[in-house]
């Protein structure tokens, strides 16, 4: 039996509830950007990835400029030199400085990747959004177009393109962009199909908001997570495609360097001079892994519902 305790009435004090306090939210008030940055900072892997990517991008931009060698100057007195103070990453079969060539190659790989990602964003998001919003027959026709594009192997498109266009960066960008946006279009379409009958979109229609505003203010912002993560995955896959094309010999032509070209050259002398393969391979792996981790972190950081 619990002991019964008398509490005298006069000990009770009426609680005063401040009317303003009742609806008060204790959380500090932050802008969307501050908030996203705060949450990104909590994700250690994403921050490290971001730092590595910044270093790689800076090196890609300034590395070739501050090197006393150019990526195309040959020096037949010093072929296949190992890494040394004069040549940090060594030299290749023509005595070209590998340090300058790697950053030149990274620059071109990143250029191709960023161009591919922008085309992805531009065509893919527009195509997907239009297809989902109009629906019906328009949607059906647009989806058939996508299916046809998916049906043609990318390699065949690239080889056919090489016959009519000169080998080079822009040919690869065009080849990547013919089919590259398909994934983005499909993801955006699925997301917008889900969103367009949500009550907040209906509310916007009832309020008389135009189609353009509905797409820009309601549909696209709520699709940003999907868009960001997909763009972040497009970049490494574009770099990889370019490396693959260069590796099988239909990418960039000498003396141009891309990471794929460098890996191909290194692979041929792998047993004798492994450093020629290892350095570009490490750079390409870093770029791909970091973009993926950063994409993941950004998706979480950009969603205001994810904050604790």
């Amino acid at each position: 039996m619990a002991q019964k305790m008398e509490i005298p009435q006069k000990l009770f004090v009426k609680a005063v509830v401040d009317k303003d306090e009742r609806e008060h939210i204790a959380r500090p008030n932050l802008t969307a950007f501050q908030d996203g940055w705060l949450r990104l900072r909590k994700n250690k892997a994403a921050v490290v990835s971001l730092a590595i990517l910044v270093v790689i991008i800076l090196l890609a931009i300034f590395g070739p400029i501050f090197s006393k060698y150019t990526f195309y100057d040959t020096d037949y007195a010093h072929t296949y030199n190992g890494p040394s103070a004069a040549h940090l990453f060594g030299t290749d079969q023509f005595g070209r400085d590998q340090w300058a060539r790697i950053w030149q190659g990274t620059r071109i790989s990143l250029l191709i990747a960023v161009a591919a990602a922008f085309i992805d964003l531009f065509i893919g998001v527009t195509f997907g959004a239009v297809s989902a919003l109009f629906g019906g027959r328009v949607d059906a026709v647009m989806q058939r177009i996508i299916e046809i594009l998916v049906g043609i192997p990318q390699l065949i498109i690239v080889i056919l393109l090489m016959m009519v266009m000169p080998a080079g960066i822009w040919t690869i960008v065009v080849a990547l962009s013919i089919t590259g946006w398909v994934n983005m279009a499909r993801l955006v379409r699925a997301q917008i199909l889900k969103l367009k009958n949500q009550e907040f979109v209906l509310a916007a229609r009832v309020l008389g908001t135009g189609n353009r505003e509905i797409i820009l203010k309601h549909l696209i912002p709520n699709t940003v997570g999907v868009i960001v993560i997909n763009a972040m995955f497009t970049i490494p896959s574009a770099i990889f495609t370019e490396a693959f094309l260069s590796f099988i010999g239909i990418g960039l032509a000498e003396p141009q360097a891309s990471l794929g070209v460098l890996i191909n050259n290194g692979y041929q002398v792998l047993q004798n001079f492994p450093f020629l393969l290892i350095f570009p391979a490490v750079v390409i792996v870093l770029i791909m892994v970091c973009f993926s981790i950063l994409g993941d972190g950004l998706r979480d950081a950009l969603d205001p519902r994810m904050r604790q």
Partner: protein
Amino acid sequence: MTDNKVILQVKNLKRYFNVGKNQTLKAVDNVSFEVYKGETFGLVGESGCGKSTLGRTIIRLYGATGGEVRFDGVNVHKKLSGAQSHELSRRMQMIFQDPYASLNPRMKVMDIVAEGIDAHGLAKSAQERAQMVVDLLEVVGLQEEHANRFPHEFSGGQRQRIGIARALSVNPDFIIADEPISALDVSIQAQVINLLKKLQEQRQLTYLFIAHDLSMVKHISDRVGVMYLGSMAELASSRELFENPLHPYTQALLSAIPLPDPDLEQSRSRVVLEGSIPSPINLPECCHFCSRCPKATELCKKQAPEMVEAEPGHWVACHLIQAPGK
């Protein structure tokens, strides 16, 4: 409050959906009613009977398959000029059911509430816009500091009040409330209902109140329409309907309301309906209630009943009820 001026007239409204080959879902079938200025018209019925579709067709989220909706004399489903259409969307507004889905999670409350102000160009400067939003938030019992918050920081009741502020931002005359309280706690339901009543007095609003909570509808409505499978079964003033239900479906529905007094509750006699609601796809031409009606006759299985005015202002669609004088 109610003067007998008709603000909304719904005449033989039909909204069908095509579901697969040769199959039509008659979500709203031949519904007619009028809403008077300043009143609250309650619309009740079980889930899936077409209440929400009716509301959304009236506010033009869906086109009409047949019939017409006249708001202040203007046929809303006809092709309207841009200005007319704009004016309609300003005067007719809607409050949604789910306070979690009806606010864009990526917009701040300021922009959510100001959406109508922007769409109709009601504010001349950013300052005026912000002031209007703050005023609206205060009207629904929120504060200035809430304007810079995201919706997920609010509780369900607070969110629903943000939704109400958004609907009020364009100064509407007529608001369709699509089950505005069914997603809320009982304690918060009263808060939101009282807010809606207060706003109605202050701003001379007319409500079309869609709900399935009968006691809440009785409390708030001046007149009530009962829907069953896409058609209107009975329509009367709130008091008349609850005291003298004529349609067998309404009788069954009202007998299901629990009573707060336990003694009365025990002796309460219920009309229990047999069977379940039939699929609304490809319904035969008959009284839609005939499969479950305890009083169904042969006639009910052959012919759909017409709405008749059994008593002044009390309309019912049932073969068993005759208009007086017939």
